[in-house]
Structure formats: C-alpha cells, structure tokens
C-alpha cells in the first residue's frame, strides 16, 4: 500500500532523513518508533505529500505521491486520514463542523446531501465511542482524550484507505493511552484500513503494531515484526527498548 524508497531530506545543514526505505502492506498497522527529533514527523509528512523529498520517492496505492503537485496531489490526499499530535481540531468550528469538514469541503463538487453528512458524522463518532451530545460542543470544551477521538472520527469520515497517526498517545494519562490504543486497533479491525503510527511510546507501539521500525539519526536502526525488532542487535535499538523492558520486568516482579 505504502512504499518509501531511499528517502532523503535536509533542512539547511540539518540532515533529517538519510535514505529511508520501508513498505507498509495493505490492512496492516506500521509503527515508526524513535526519540524526539529523530525525524518521525518529517517521514510522515512525506507520506502524505506535505513535504517533498530531496531524493527518493513515496508511492501510495501505486501512485508516486512525492512527484504529484497541485490538483493531482489534492486528489491523492483523499486516500488519507491523518490524526495530528495535538488533534489539530479547528477551534473556530464545533465538533460537528470539524468532523463534517472533509465531507462538506473536499466533496463540494459531489454535493453530499446534508442528511448524509450528518449520518456519516454520527456513524464515525460512534466508532470512537462518542455520542450525539458532543456535536454542538467546541474543541476547547473537550478533554485531551476526547479531542483525539474527535480527530480520529474526522480522519475516518471520508472513508480513507490509509490513516496516519502522529504521536497519538503523547501527553495522555495511562488509561486514556490504553483507550487510544484500543481505538487504533478497533479502527483497523472494523474498517480494514492501513495505518501508519509514529510514536515514542514503546508500550503502545508493541501493542498496536503488525510491523514496526526504529528510526535513529535519519536511518532505520531496526525494522520487522515486533518480535524481530525486540531481538535486534543494533546498540541504539537495544538501549531504546531496554529501558522499557526493564521497567516492565520490574513491574511484573512487584505484581
């Protein structure tokens, strides 16, 4: 579904991506793990065409996203839904207007009937466990977890083939984190969509991933199934994962 080939990107002297190659099969959840400033978000923005590579290419569903411009790129973006780190809900719009936005704006030419828009908004809010009572509320009135859920409903409303999650669990408490993980798994199971998650939350990553990669210094330090990555001999990967595994082991012992 998604193929990234030899992707290079620099901002001035800051070389962020140095030859990334990865493949995300259809219907799978792929997690890119990495520390702060490792270039995870930059990688994701290339996948959706918000950034252009210096070298290399990104193919999604057989189309080379990295070579598209203007109208063709706009059309290609209809394949995607994206959940941003801070939810990125439009704060001048209500929850209903936010979730309906991709339908009322993107498909202006097709003129989706208002009743149909409302039906789909409610249906997608149900997928993320929210009822109709949130429709007239403003983003500023919602908790962090609810904003994430509304953001996912907005990402799902136009029935995308791929959903991208930018740090979905950052800044959330453990219970909400668990809930968001469940939401990602549920979206995959219920709708069969391909997902790409970028995160530094190791626990969540191992929970939701079919495959995962560890990004370090612009390279993929490890790539494979969660079990393969766990066995990686790369020193950075070992260090990155060991802290979490040690913490988990001590929690198991004390339990």
């Amino acid at each position, binding site marked *: 579904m998604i193929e990234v080939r030899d992707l290079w990107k620099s901002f001035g002297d800051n070389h962020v991506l140095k030859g990334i190659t990865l493949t995300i099969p259809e219907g799978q959840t792929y997690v890119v793990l990495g520390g702060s400033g490792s270039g995870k978000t930059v990688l994701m*923005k290339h996948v959706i065409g918000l950034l252009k590579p210096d070298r290399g290419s990104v193919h999604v569903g057989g189309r080379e996203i990295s070579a598209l411009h203007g109208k063709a790129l706009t059309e290609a973006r209809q394949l995607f839904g*994206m959940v941003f780190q801070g939810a*990125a*809900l*439009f704060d001048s719009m209500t929850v209903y207007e936010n979730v309906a936005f991709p339908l009322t704006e*993107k498909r202006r030419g097709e003129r989706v009937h208002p009743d149909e828009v409302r039906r789909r908004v409610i249906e997608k809010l149900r997928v993320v466990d929210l009822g109709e009572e949130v429709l007239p509320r403003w983003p500023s009135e919602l908790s962090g977890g609810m904003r994430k859920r509304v953001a996912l409903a907005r990402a799902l409303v136009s029935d995308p083939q791929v959903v991208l999650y930018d740090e979905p669990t950052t800044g959330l408490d453990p219970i909400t984190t668990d809930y968001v993980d469940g939401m990602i798994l549920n979206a995959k199971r219920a709708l069969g969509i391909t997902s790409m998650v970028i995160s530094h939350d190791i626990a969540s990553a191992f929970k939701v991933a079919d495959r995962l990669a560890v990004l370090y210094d612009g390279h993929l330090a490890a790539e494979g199934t969660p079990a393969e990555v766990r066995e990686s001999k790369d020193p950075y990967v070992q260090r990155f994962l060991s802290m979490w595994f040690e913490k988990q082991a001590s929690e198991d012992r004390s339990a």
Partner: protein
Amino acid sequence: MERLKAALEDFGRMLLFAVEMVAWIFRPPFRPELVLAQMAFIGVGSAFIVGVTGTFSGMVFALQMNFAMKQFAAEGYVGGSVAFSLARELSPVFTALMVTGRAGSAIATELGTMRVTEQLDAMESMAVNPIQYLVVPRVIASLLMFPVLTMLFNALGYAGGFVMGVYVARIPIGPYLAHTQEFMNVSDILHGLLKAVVFGLIVSVITTWRGYAATGGAKGVGEGTTRGVVASSIFILLADYAITFVSVGT
C-alpha cells in the same frame, strides 16, 4: 548583512505566497460565504472604530484649518480643505492604519495559531488548500471593504468638520459648501479609493503571510503579529507616498 539577506528572502517568499494566492482566487470551489463572513469581520466589525476616528479627525482638522485660515480672513475655505484632505489622504491612510490594528492583527494571530497547532497542516491533509480556504476570502474581503470603510471615514469626517466649522466656528454655511464644491472633484474621491484598494491588498497579504509563516508556539505567533502590523503600517505609508508622487508629481 545577514539580517538584510534574511529580510529579502522573507520578502521574496511573501511575494511567491501572494502569487499563489492570486492563482487560487480563480480556481473552484469558490466560497462566497467565507468572503461574506470576512467582509462582516473586517468591514462591519471595523465600522465603529473607523467612524469614530473619521468623525474626530474631521472635527479637529476643521478647527485647525479655521485657526489657520482666520489669519487670512479665508475661513470659507475650511470646508473645501477638509473635504479635499480627507478624500485624498486622511481617509484612506487613517482607515488602513486603524483596520490594520483591529483586523490585521487578528488575522495574523488567528492564522499563526492555526499554523503552530497544525490546523493548517490538518486542513491540507484533508485536501483543502489553506491559502484558498483562509487567505483568499480575507484578501477579497479587504479589497472590497477598505474602500467602503474609507467612504465611511470621508462621510463622517466631513460631517464632523461641518458641525465644527458651521456651528462651532460660525463659518457661514454658504461659502463653506460653495468652496467645498469648488475644491472637490470626483477624481479626488477616486484617488482616495484607489489608495484604499492598494492598502487593502497590502494589509491582507502581509498579515495573512505573517500568520501563515508563523513558527515556534505562542511567542512566534506574537512576534508574527507584531511584524505583520509594523510592516503593514510602513508599507501603507510608502505606498501612499508612491501613489501621491505618481499622480501629483512635485
């Protein structure tokens, strides 16, 4: 030298942004409801402050002119001077500066906040171009409303001057109106309105750009807004000089 280079680069990027914005004006889908909402915000919302500024400017200017003209026993010319100065200079420039402070700063802050909270990226990821959705309506609304607000300034400024001149300074109403007609041409009004359109373009492009290009959180948004308001004000004055110089000469 480095700062000059950075400023020139930034100016170049703003020009490219303006060119892209112009291209988006003519591409469907068109969103008249967003233009109307911005006309309400920029135009109707600024009417009070522009009206107050216009009224007081006209009043003060009439009193000052009366004071000066009295030396030559030429008080009758006060009405004409007020109308002429308002139409060609005071109305377009003061209106633009007031709207920059009220609406321009709000535009830069709103777009800047949307940029740093990834709302612009979110919009783009949903296949909606933020320049078309957010910038174009603000620019069109400015181009339409700056002249309207300038006319409001003209009307209330002249009315304020009239009250001061005729009822406070006791200038006879006959010569006051006659000299206004003698001094003024439609071209004077049009000259001011042309300036208003140019100022509308300057303010809307600069302030939307400063929001669109904001970086680095709340501080960056604040800096962007300040730079947007300062740059708009300076370019209004430069453009005012340039248009006046070209049309009047030395």
